[in-house]
């Protein structure tokens, strides 16, 4: 420690540096400090000087062992270091290292054991650098260092006292006094002071007790310091473990200590017996570096490692993540469970038997083939020797070999000569049989030849026989070979014909035959099997249908009319099976839910008529029905009943979808392919509309059970044309039965070029675009079964990459309307007639020209419409009227909406600075978002994905409505005119019908992706519903912010990526609502918890968001400009744009 400091030193010299001076208990010499610090001006010089000085000390140390007092040099060195480097230990001073060296050096020198200087060095080390000071003191005690010095006890006791172990401190003082440590007086004084402190602040019970009472073990300290004191210090183990990982030296300690505690507890006081050494097992306390070594990262190959971000001090926060992969030593992996690389992954289990692949003994590893060979006893056979011995016989061999050449089960005793292939069986037998005859070695070639001659005769056996033989043969190998073996072995030279007959030798020649026969059998078997399967499956479906129906019924929660329904459901199969009419009273259909107002009167009548109508097709229907999945039947029935009414036919079951119950039903029954259920109503319609009388029949043709999704791949590209082709082929009912679908596979249409030319010229002229009378446009005529459908192209509406969309005038409607103009006002009849002719069609419709043609979009749109039924979301799907499919082009006739898309709205808002900040009003965004969410929700629950949601694929559907019937107050149920305002989804070209795929299918996209595609696509991970969720997020984002979505991923707590948008919302927006919504839409997989089966679609999570939004709209729609007014203004703007 620093020396004395007589002359005054200016404090200013030090003042500036005081923060860099490590305080010493004994204080520092101001002069020395001043010297050191003043020199700081030139650190480089100083460093040089210090280095020189250090080198001098080191030199001195080398010869120190020859000095009388080698410690003196060390003390000087340490003191100099402490003074010179006031800032404490550093790389330069290396004080730790120095202290460690000196303390270790003299540990066993009796000369210094009780030298205060040496003890001071220890204490200096312990105080400044030891992680576990108590342990260090115990170590000193164990090594008998400073046991005669009061200083030791004082320091130790002070330490214990400072950490609240006053019992132990008292014990230490006591021990010191017992030891008569010098200076005794000081120790006594300190002890008194300690006692005083104790009195003022008595020891409470919760303080740690040393295991032995101080009073009862006066001199026990002796041993105590061999172990007793250590025992008293028993506790150190805990903090040590908390603070750092156990290191080898102390690791032994607990055990030792325990021994000490127990044995010493009743050990009698002895003066110093133990002093001499109880140290066994604790010879080294370890340097700091040594202790720290587990915290330092070892250098090792980088591959597969994750960098630790921080030292091991706080592993708890990130330990799981960063856990370094521990290579399970291949040769010792006894169990097949591989510890997961990181804690948040599932444990892995290897399906293979690693014990076999990597057996314990030796470092040999085995491949599966080897293992199988071993198992079959085919491994380790010395084929060479075997063959050598066969050498002679080989010549006699016929070229083609028998199937079972030399079979052996066990490693062979090679001495036996193997007879050639024919006898392979025999050989084996020989090998194994107890009667194996070494004499075989003398087998002569002549003999062999003879044998073979005999052998070869059976070649003429008929094929059939051979078959049998071969079978026998194998049998023989399995079982009886051993007995046989003896025979043959003995009679080598005189094979009896029987044996020969059984031989395989002739096989090679005949094998083909046998194969053929075999195959024939196989085929036949397969066929019969197949049939059986079919039948049974049908039965199964039927049976299952009954059960499931009931189950599903419960789900639906139609408590009110549950019973009725049950009846119907139960009866359905009966009806089907018998092809008879349903008993009338059973026809009661559950009273429809909510606001539904079905045409009830025609119902029963229609019902009968319907049943009759159906007669001709009865049988086919039966089969089909059977194949339908459970709920199908009921729904289908409902549809049939209504068919005769011919009206737009809200079908009851489908209608139920629009009720909350319906939604639930759909959620739960996603697997139900109601695809086919909804089809039937179309069939009758078709009948009336088209002369395709025969078509329905084909539609109702018996079909394979529909349980199996058409595409069973677990991962595929849903846009894949081949895949779609497969779907078209298997679709039930076939595509062609869809109303309005006209397929002309053999003929070309060849109008595309003309239409394109026209639209180009239109674009140039930019003439009166909307004039329906211009009549310039090319007319496209489709010859359908019931006449010509004629459309006059007016202008181009939109340009798709493959499919431009044109505005066309439906000539049929145009004619009707023109006629209507000529009619008298009063000619109701005539008007009705005309209305009927137009059949809900419009004069202006959109024609999407596809090239190359694909019926996909038509299919998806129809499916969407059908499955949605009269659900409100159905309004938000554009109507697809007709599809004309030619081999070269396809024409999809769509409903025409002239109000533009959401993208147009966004652009209008952008241009209209008055609307504020160039973005849409939040209320309007909220309104449209709700519309979109509702639509997509409904589509998803019915297994339809849009696949290409974006702002320009959402047409505005602001149907005109008189102010009187449109309330200013938003109604979430669509009442008061609000259902007339919304959106219409278009462009289902990338639509996906989930019901065509197996339930756990995953998709992968093959197109180039960008920020507008969902994260899964961009990162080339498989996806399903995410595509639409992301699409929704993108649209809503664009509406809100007026720019395209950008999202970033942040690591979630579970290792899953969590995405969020990068744009920041305006302060006054409904941030909670939007944030929640984006969170669900961008991370659907994190929200599957609340769903029925814990998988997507996350309809409930979205529903929750939508509920929140609707509530907000209802409460806030009249604030500011008012939602209604905003929409009105937009309507006006949109119509102006036209």
């Amino acid at each position: 420690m620093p020396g004395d400091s007589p002359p005054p030193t200016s404090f200013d010299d030090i003042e500036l540096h005081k923060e860099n001076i490590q305080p010493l208990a004994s204080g520092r010499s101001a002069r020395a400090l001043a010297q050191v610090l003043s020199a700081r001006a030139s650190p480089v010089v100083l460093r040089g000087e210090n280095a020189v000085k250090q080198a001098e000390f080191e030199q001195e140390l080398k010869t120190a062992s020859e000095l009388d007092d080698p410690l003196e040099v060390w003390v000087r060195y340490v003191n100099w270091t402490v003074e010179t480097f006031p800032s404490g230990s550093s790389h330069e001073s290396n004080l730790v290292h120095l202290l460690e060296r000196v303390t270790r050096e003299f540990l066993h020198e009796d000369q210094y054991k009780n030298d205060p200087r040496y003890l001071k060095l220890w204490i200096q080390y312990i105080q400044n650098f030891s992680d576990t000071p108590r342990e260090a003191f115990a170590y000193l005690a164990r090594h008998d260092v400073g046991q005669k010095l009061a200083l030791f006890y004082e320091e130790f006791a002070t330490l214990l006292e400072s950490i609240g172990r006053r019992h132990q401190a008292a014990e230490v003082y006591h021990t010191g006094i017992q030891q008569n440590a010098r200076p005794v007086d000081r120790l006594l004084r300190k002890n008194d002071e300690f006692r005083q402190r104790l009195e003022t602040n008595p020891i409470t019970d919760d303080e740690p007790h040393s295991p032995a009472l101080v009073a009862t073990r006066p001199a026990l300290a002796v041993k105590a310091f061999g172990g007793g004191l250590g025992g008293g210090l028993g506790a150190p183990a805990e903090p040590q473990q908390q603070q750092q990982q156990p290191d080898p030296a102390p690791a032994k300690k607990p055990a030792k200590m325990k021994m000490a505690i127990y044995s010493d507890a009743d050990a009698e006081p002895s003066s110093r017996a133990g002093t001499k050494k109880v140290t066994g097992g604790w010879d080294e306390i370890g340097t700091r570096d040594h202790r720290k070594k587990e915290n330092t990262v070892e250098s090792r190959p980088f591959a597969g490692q994750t960098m630790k971000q921080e030292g091991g001090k706080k592993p708890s926060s990130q330990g799981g993540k960063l856990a370094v992969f521990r290579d399970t030593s291949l040769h010792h992996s006894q169990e097949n469970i591989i510890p997961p690389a990181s804690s948040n992954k599932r444990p892995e289990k290897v399906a293979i038997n690693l014990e076999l692949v990597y057996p314990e003994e030796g470092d040999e590893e085995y491949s599966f083939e080897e293992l199988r060979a071993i198992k079959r006893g085919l491994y380790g056979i010395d084929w060479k020797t075997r063959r050598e011995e066969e050498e002679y016989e080989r010549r006699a061999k016929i070229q083609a070999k028998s199937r079972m050449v030399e079979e052996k089960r066990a490693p062979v005793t090679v001495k036996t000569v193997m007879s050639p292939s024919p006898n392979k069986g025999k050989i084996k037998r020989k090998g194994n049989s107890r009667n194996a005859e070494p004499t075989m070695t003398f087998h002569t070639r002549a003999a062999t030849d003879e044998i073979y001659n005999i052998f070869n005769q059976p070649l003429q056996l008929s094929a059939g026989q051979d078959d049998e033989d071969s079978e026998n043969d194998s049998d023989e190998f399995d079982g009886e070979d051993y007995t046989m073996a003896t025979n043959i072995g003995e009679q080598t030279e005189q094979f009896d014909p029987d044996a020969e007959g059984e031989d395989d030798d002739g096989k090679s020649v005949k094998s083909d035959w046998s194969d053929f026969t075999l195959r024939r059998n196989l085929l036949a078997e397969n066929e019969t099997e197949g049939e059986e399967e079919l039948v049974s499956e049908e039965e199964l479906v039927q049976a299952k249908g009954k059960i499931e129906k009931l189950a599903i019924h419960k789900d639906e929660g139609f408590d009110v009319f549950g019973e009725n329904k049950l009846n119907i459901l139960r009866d359905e199969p009966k009806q089907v099976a018998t092809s008879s009419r349903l008993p009338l009273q059973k026809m009661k259909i559950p009273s429809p839910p909510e606001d539904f107002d079905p045409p009830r009167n025609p119902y029963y009548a229609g019902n009968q008529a319907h049943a009759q109508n159906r007669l001709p097709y009865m049988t086919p229907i039966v089969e089909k029905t059977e194949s339908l999945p459970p709920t199908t039947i009921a729904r289908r029935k409902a549809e049939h009943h209504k068919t005769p009414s011919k009206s737009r036919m809200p079908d009851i079951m489908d209608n139920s979808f629009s009720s909350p119950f319906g939604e639930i039903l759909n959620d739960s029954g996603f697997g139900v392919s109601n695809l086919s259920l909804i089809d039937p109503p179309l069939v009758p319609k078709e009948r009336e509309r088209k002369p395709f009388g025969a078509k329905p029949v084909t539609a109702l043709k018996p079909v394979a059970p529909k349980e199996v999704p058409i595409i069973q791949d677990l991962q595929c590209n849903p846009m894949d044309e081949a895949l779609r082709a497969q779907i078209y082929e298997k679709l039930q009912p076939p595509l062609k039965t869809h109303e309005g679908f006209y397929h002309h596979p053999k003929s070309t249409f060849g109008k595309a070029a003309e239409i394109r030319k026209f639209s180009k010229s239109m674009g140039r002229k930019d003439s009166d675009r909307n004039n329906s009378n211009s009549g310039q446009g090319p007319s496209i005529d489709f010859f359908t079964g019931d006449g010509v459908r004629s459309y006059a192209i007016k202008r181009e509406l939109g340009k798709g990459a493959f499919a431009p969309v044109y505005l066309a005038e439906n000539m049929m409607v145009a004619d009707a309307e023109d006629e209507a103009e000529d009619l008298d006002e009063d000619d109701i009849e005539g008007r009705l007639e005309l209305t009927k002719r137009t059949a809900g069609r419009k004069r202006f419709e959109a024609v999407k020209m596809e090239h190359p043609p694909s019926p996909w979009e038509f299919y998806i749109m129809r499916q969407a419409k059908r499955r949605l039924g009269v659900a409100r979301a159905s309004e938000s799907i554009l109507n697809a009227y007709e599809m004309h499919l030619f081999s070269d082009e396809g024409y999809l006739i769509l409903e025409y909406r002239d109000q533009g898309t959401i993208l147009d709205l966004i652009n209008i808002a952008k241009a209209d600075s008055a609307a504020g900040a160039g973005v849409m009003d939040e209320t309007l965004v909220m309104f449209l978002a709700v519309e979109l969410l509702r639509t997509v929700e409904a589509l998803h629950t019915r297994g339809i994905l849009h696949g290409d949601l974006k702002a320009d694929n959402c047409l505005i559907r602001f149907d005109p409505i008189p102010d009187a019937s449109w309330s200013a107050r938003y109604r979430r149920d669509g009442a008061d005119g609000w259902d007339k305002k919304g959106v219409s989804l278009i462009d289902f070209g990338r639509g996906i019908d989930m019901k065509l795929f197996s339930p756990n299918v995953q998709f992968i996209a093959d197109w180039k992706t960008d920020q507008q595609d969902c994260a899964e696509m961009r990162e080339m991970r498989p996806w399903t519903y995410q595509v639409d969720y992301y699409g929704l997020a993108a649209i809503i984002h664009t509406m809100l912010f007026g720019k395209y979505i950008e999202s970033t991923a942040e690591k979630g707590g579970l290792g899953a990526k969590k995405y969020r948008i990068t744009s920041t919302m305006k302060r006054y927006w409904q941030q909670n609502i939007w944030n929640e919504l984006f969170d669900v839409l961008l991370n659907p997989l994190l929200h599957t918890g609340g769903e029925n089966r814990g998988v997507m679609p996350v309809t409930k999570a979205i529903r929750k968001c939508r509920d929140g939004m609707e509530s907000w709209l209802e409460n806030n729609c009249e604030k500011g400009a008012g939602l209604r007014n905003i929409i009105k203004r937009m309507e006006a703007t949109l119509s102006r744009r036209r």
Partner: protein
Amino acid sequence: MAQATSQFELSSPPEDAISALTFSPTSPTRLLASSWDKYVHLYDTNAGLNGSKLTALSHAAPVLDCCFGENDGVLFSGGLDWLVKQWDPETGAETTLGSHEDGVKSVCYNQEIKSLISGSWDHTIRLFDPRASTETSKHHQPHKIFSTSTINHTLVVAMASRSVYLYDVRNMSEPWQRRESSLKFQTRTVRCMPNGQGYASSSIEGRIAVEFFDASEESQKRKYAFKCHRAVEGGVDVVYPVNALAFHPNYGTFASGGGDGIVSLWDGMAKRRLRQYQKYPASIAGLSFSPNGKYLAIGSSSGFEDGNDGGEFPPESVKIFIRELAEGEGKGKGQ
């Protein structure tokens, strides 16, 4: 169960576990399958409804690998009986090219040097000249050979202890490169990319590595490995061996078949999975694309993963499927 139309099952499959499958490099309808039933089966996949077996040639012991030679008229096979054989399917004529000193695990034919290369558990690679029916050279390896594959002048030899040696077939005296497999477990299969740039290897522990021949650093940086053929069963990821790999001849994508009975198509360049076919009834033992890339042959038979083969092998579990790939199926991203 309805099968996809684009797939059918070969009639008269082998009667025991399939060890290898390979389409002829020249005709898309010739399929060779070696089996533990000690036969090499040659099929015409185009005949009749479900193809037909043209011929079958026998070994004295289970056959572990087979391949075509210069054309459809030359077949090679190697098996547990140590022999490497050459066959003429027309005449049934058989020539023994040579013998190893342990089971022959792998045979492959190199078009450049017109040689058959065989690898065996006896730690040797041997080259044979099929025209002369002689062994031309023998090369000792440090370990048992588990799989070989060759393209152009490169031969990849995968051995036990995760060793992978690359040879230039023109100079077989020394390995061109000595590598350690990127996979931590035993190598199951190696297959060279048709473009001769590199190879894919699979391990018994559900992983596939894609590596490149070029030893330069940039090239080596491109190598990668990924997990596959795993299934969650009861909260545990069950890891299956990847038994078979096959590159698509045109697109350079590849198919993998695992002990889980699943066949996946991968785009090695874009590092992603293109397709995953429905589960097959048993472990996938062999895969092969036809030379025109139109068909994928899938051999499915119980594997030996669990060590419970026991010689009791249900023949009905052995099936060969021919999957007709749709136009563009197997095409990688951006191709």
